[in-house]
């Protein structure tokens, strides 16, 4: 009677010991100082079911794990390994030393690196920082841009702007239906570097500002004459609109030559297109 229970306890203890032994490596997997190499071990994960009906099938064929000759030679045993070196325990928020993360400026040949989709650690999605009835506008160097209005109850109304003409919209952002977009264009002669706009969302009035990408004035005209007449254009305000920005814009008025740009507004910074923490890259 004692023996079976003893065996059970022994097995459980052995399992615990195994888990303890493997845990540090698992925790360190996403640290670049330990070039973890998966060698054709996993056929990756199953492709996730697409969330939308027609966004389908990205098969993740991680099977071929050919490692280029130039890649660090890992010792391969068919499982995730950490090469000899300083043991690194990755914890949340820990960053690798910059030198340990080589980044190729240009990569013309495919750098065969593996990614292990199976590993996930703390990868909870970012929180939703949505604020209803808020808005901001962005105008690019060419004088075109977009007003973005957060209005979860439906399309905003009574959009009124200063120095801008609404050329299209409203359209919902394809990524988040709570956001509405209006295409805008700067009216001729407007030289402000910011402009207010307003709208109504579910009966509530809202106010926002439009940011302009700056065009470097072609000449350094030092005789700045503040303009007192502002091009207050209530752009595309529907009839009956009562909400008009009451700002008076006073800015120096060099004659701006707006370049023809193909990307109407160039977003600043990188693009946030990964939250799962499942991919690893080494270049």
């Amino acid at each position, binding site marked *: 009677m004692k023996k079976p*229970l003893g065996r059970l306890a022994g097995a*459980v*203890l052995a*399992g*615990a010991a195994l*888990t*303890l032994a493997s*845990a540090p490596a698992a925790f360190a997997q996403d640290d*670049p100082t330990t070039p973890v190499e998966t060698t054709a071990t996993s056929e990756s994960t199953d492709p*996730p079911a*697409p*969330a939308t009906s*027609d*966004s389908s*099938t*990205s*098969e*993740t064929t991680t099977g071929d794990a050919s490692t280029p000759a130039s890649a660090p030679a890992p010792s391969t045993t068919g499982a995730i390994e950490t090469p000899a070196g300083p043991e690194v325990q990755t914890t949340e*928020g820990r960053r690798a030393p910059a030198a340990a993360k080589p*980044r190729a*400026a*240009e*990569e013309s040949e495919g750098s065969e690196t593996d990614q292990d*989709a199976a590993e*996930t*650690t703390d*990868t909870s*999605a*970012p*929180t*939703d920082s949505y*604020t209803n009835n808020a*808005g*901001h506008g*962005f105008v690019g160097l060419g004088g075109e841009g977009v007003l*973005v209005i957060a209005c979860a109850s439906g399309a905003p109304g009574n959009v009124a702007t200063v120095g801008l003409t609404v050329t299209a919209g*409203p359209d*919902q*952002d394809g*990524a988040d*239906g*709570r*956001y509405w977009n209006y295409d805008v264009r700067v009216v001729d002669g407007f030289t402000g570097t910011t402009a207010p706009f307003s709208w109504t969302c579910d009966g509530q009035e809202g106010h926002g500002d439009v940011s302009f990408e700056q065009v470097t004035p072609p000449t350094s005209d030092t005789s700045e004459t503040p303009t007192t007449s502002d091009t207050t254009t209530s752009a595309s305000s529907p009839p009956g609109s009562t909400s008009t920005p009451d700002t008076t814009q006073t800015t120096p008025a060099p004659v701006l030559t707006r370049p*023809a740009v*193909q*990307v*109407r*507004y*160039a977003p*600043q910074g*990188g*693009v*946030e297109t*990964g*939250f*799962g*923490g*499942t*991919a690893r*890259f080494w270049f």
Partner: protein
Amino acid sequence: MKRTKLAAAAASALAVIAVLAGCGSSPTPAPAAAAKPAPSSVPVTKPFKGLRPTSVSIPKIGAKSSLVSVAVNLEGKISVPSVKTPMQAAWYRLSPVPGEVGPAVVLGHVDGDKKPGIFYKLKDLVPGDEVDIDRSDGKKLKFTVDHLTQVPKDQFPQDAVYSNSTKPELRLITCGGVFDHAEHSYEDNIVVYANLAP
């Protein structure tokens, strides 16, 4: 007596295992969200209906998705599909329509919701690989990869990605590099540059 000790040891061991397994795989509950009266999602019933790309397909990596049209968020960054739909790609609609002269921008998640995303294997593309785009006017366009870069997000190459070009080009953007757990974000972007095939 001995039996009791053995049982206690087994229970302790099980507890250790449970704790260790939880460290790496169980989802960390999202920070308590403040009370938000607005719904967390709203169906898109009035999307952009102008000329636009409708789908992207990259045979080499088996990626195929419809394309939603996105603009920017309130911070002026490109709006991206929900992390809960990592297989959804998007076209940045303030960039040219693919096939027009200029750099058309298409983006997709490398992963999300702990699953691979539509551009999970984007980094495996090499020069000459094919990228197919369908448009709302029925045109089917074929692009070929020219080159690929991996860059830190805080050094994102604005000019290379968004500047004017003299011919129809395509930019495919996703995330890469080290995953910053604190920020729930990768540190780099992968950018694939492609040209319209003759």
